């Protein structure tokens, strides 16, 4: 008999999905900076370095959405199977990575 517990903690799912989202945002920011000098200049102005601003935005997306997803469903967090979470993380990181390259 299989006695292994199923499911993942709410923070694993929430921050896993936030990780996938932040990875894509990371790639989209690269495109935005390359296509629009105005965006790059604005990001440069915010912290003195467009790269530092870029990092702050991506980390903020990760932290904010991880926290928000954990509060969903009346505080139980969003629900997802391990397979779906792994696919979301791999797809998010792959998409973010491919956009950068």
């Amino acid at each position: 008999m299989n006695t292994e517990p199923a499911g993942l903690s709410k923070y694993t799912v929430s921050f896993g999905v936030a990780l996938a989202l932040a990875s894509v945002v990371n790639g989209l920011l690269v495109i935005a900076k390359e296509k629009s000098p105005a965006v790059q200049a604005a990001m440069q102005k915010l912290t003195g370095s467009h790269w530092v601003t870029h990092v702050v935005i991506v980390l903020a997306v990760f932290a904010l959405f991880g926290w928000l997803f954990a509060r969903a469903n009346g505080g139980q967090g969003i629900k997802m199977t391990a397979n779906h979470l792994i696919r979301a993380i791999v797809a998010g990181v792959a998409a973010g990575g491919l956009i950068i390259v």
Partner: protein
Amino acid sequence: MNELILMAHVLSGVACVVTTVWVFVDVLNASPSNQARIRRMSCAVAVFMWLAFVIAGYWYVFDYPADKAVILKGPWPFAHRFFMETKEHLVILLLLLTTFLPIAATNNLAANKDARRVVLWVAGLIILLGLTAEGDGGIIAMGVKVGLLAR
């Protein structure tokens, strides 16, 4: 001083990758006896990566512009145009993954196969991206070297 900063960055990056390999192997053999160690080592992965990232960020913002000028005037301009441009954004993905690893490791890995699979995939991505970042760094350093030799 610049050389020390760079070596500290490389050392922290290598420590991050090696520690992640440790976590990967430990999770393959997860049991109640090694669960606490997996969690400690997962935290170490995040600490090493944040160290590598903060050191590199300082160097990139304040010291790299001089190296960038050398690379762009040298025979390997692609060391900046492709490899540094890629690395400076790829390491953000690495920072996210390494920050997530200790969160995923809080699950009961000894008893939960799903949680083990998530940690293994995340650790695998960290190893892959970490080695890519190390390779990128080597090419960037070589870009500076051949740029200086060509003067």
